[in-house]
């Protein structure tokens, strides 16, 4: 079954207004691994008949990496262009699968004239399950599996969202195991603050390797995350230990889509 991905432009041409805008983000649009997360989320949105749209080719970088790198000019140029587009479509509510976009749109756009209700995709999925729109069958594919959740910094510490992804994992009938550093004390994957785009400074270890060790200690078979950057870093970390055949790194949206057999 093909994905149904309406754009804001198409919707507007038909005189329709979506309930929520899905902000895909650069990773979700271009990175091969992250695109799978994007599609998993769209499958869920389609299944639940959520009235959503994407900006498509009108979307542009939220400006997060520019701001974290210290280039406020590039950030504000991006933000104001995006805000013009978003306000032009009278967007009220935004969902995104990228905690970096989430944080920027939610916290840093208001002062530049962009005021939206911004939610992370795990919060939206939680809502869909709570309202009965998405039903997970008992004993799905993840029943009994050990799953650990890696907190993305920009979702957890930066915005205090710890429960939504964990609630979803518990819905899978799986065993949620916590790493020794989790929630407020969760260790970064190493990609934040524009580190994703550069080599790390000299040290004695890569941060994602240190973090993967935390995950391996739990003997989980699945490392769940809610961020495309974390996904990349943890996937590389697992490969570093040659464990890619034993341990999967999956986004919470992928877990739910799989469990719901979408």
């Amino acid at each position: 079954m093909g994905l149904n991905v309406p754009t804001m432009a198409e919707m507007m041409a038909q005189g329709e207004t979506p309930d929520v805008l899905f902000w895909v983000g650069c990773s979700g649009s271009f990175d091969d691994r992250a695109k799978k997360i994007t599609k998993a989320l769209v499958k869920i949105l389609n299944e639940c008949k959520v009235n959503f749209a994407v900006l498509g080719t009108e979307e542009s970088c939220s400006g997060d990496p520019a701001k974290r790198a210290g280039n406020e000019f590039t950030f504000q140029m991006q933000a104001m262009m995006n805000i013009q587009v978003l306000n032009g479509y009278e967007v009220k509510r935004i969902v995104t699968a990228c905690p970096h976009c989430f944080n920027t749109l939610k916290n840093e756009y208001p002062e530049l004239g962009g005021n939206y209700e911004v939610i992370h995709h795990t919060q939206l999925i939680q809502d869909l399950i709570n309202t009965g729109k998405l039903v997970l069958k008992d004993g799905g594919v993840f029943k009994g599996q050990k799953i650990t959740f890696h907190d993305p910094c920009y979702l957890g510490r930066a915005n205090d969202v710890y429960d939504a992804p964990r609630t979803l994992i518990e819905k899978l009938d799986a065993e949620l195991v916590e790493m020794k550093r989790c929630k407020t004390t969760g260790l970064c994957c190493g990609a934040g603050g524009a580190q994703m785009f550069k080599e790390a400074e000299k040290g004695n270890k890569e941060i994602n390797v240190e973090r993967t060790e935390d995950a391996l200690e739990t003997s989980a078979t699945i490392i769940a995350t809610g961020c495309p950057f974390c996904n990349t870093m943890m996937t590389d970390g697992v490969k570093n230990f040659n464990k890619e055949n034993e341990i999967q790194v999956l986004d919470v949206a992928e877990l739910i889509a799989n469990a719901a057999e979408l």
Partner: protein
Amino acid sequence: MLSIILFAVLAIVGIGFFAYNVRKVRFNILLGRPTDRTDNASERWKTMTLVALGQKKMFTRPIPALLHLTLYTAFVITQIELIEIFADGLTGGHRTFEDVLGGFYTFMISFIEILTVLALIGTIAFLSRRNLLKLPRLNMKELAGWPMKDANLILIMEIVLVACIFTMNGADEAAQLQKGNVGYGFAISSFLGPLFLNMTDNLETLHTLEMIGWWGHIIMVFAFLNYLPYSKHFHILLAFPNTYYSNLEKKGKFTNMESVTAEVKLMMDPNADPYAAPTEPQAEPQRFGAKDVTDLTWKNLLDAYTCTECGRCTSSCPANVTGKILSPRKIMMDTRDRLVEVGENMRKHGKDYNDNKSLLGDYITEEEIWSCTSCNACVQECPVNIDPLSIIVDLRRYLVMEESKMPSELTGMLTNIENNGAPWQFSQNDRLNWAKED
């Protein structure tokens, strides 16, 4: 009479010199740029009560939290005894509160004595953790030299203080017993009294010992008070204002640079006249970001004075735990050291003095600030709500916007965002291709 005058002089000098140093610190902090932290007073009081008074964030690490609690409660409760010392000192009296409070006095001093013993245990434990067990976060290279001496000196002063208190109470107890009176019955010194009596039953000597304890105690108190502005130990006072003025926004929200907003708006306004004269007289343009401490906000500078160098930030920093050069604690220590230097220079040589040094470059290197992942672990960990990340970000802003200096990959990333709206080289027109792929 002589002792009253001596005490009064000591008190005036002690408090006066402290006030003089506090004025200097205040002057230094106010060298920072403005930032508004006066909104939402009720939330601020709540934060201060929980975090500073209630030590909420300390308890994520229970062992040091309990040890610290012994010193903290002993310190706070002992202030009651200090009031009596003042009363005695200024009237020439002896245990002024005893008659007023009666039985409660015995309870109060006993309570203080027990807390003091606990604090002594805490102090010894802290000295051991630092010097014998050599806990990693208390033995990092940024602590070499003065910071380590500072930390040990404070703990040794604590021990001297405790020794003075028990010399005073123990000798007094012994003197009472020697005079044939019933002892005070304080929890600890009623055991010390007989020990003192074993050493000497000379009333004169016992009285001298008590006086040594009494004067030693009050001299230590004033010494300690005046040591604070030079020491990392200033946190015992500054933790309160520092938590009151906490950042109440979400940690992920970086400040908006309004000076940039004005320019970007002008660039994006098709009707703007680029040659138009400014409508209002412009103030001297501010530097983008921070090169030196005076480019930081006063809250960043208050943070620096509040830091007690415990290193929780550094021990949770992903860059630091993987061997990178960045240490958030060092960022705070450097900021304070540089601020003290800038403040001294200004007082000596005038406001515009330039020593050709700066926080970035002479204290903090570029490698340190580029190691940061902006994960907020340091901000989360700090028991007194210090924010090293905002300093790191402001230093980055200066480097990138004023000097165009950054790791070359970041130049590429920024160019991509400007050219094609993504940090990688993908065309904006391909943004929806994923929807058509399998």
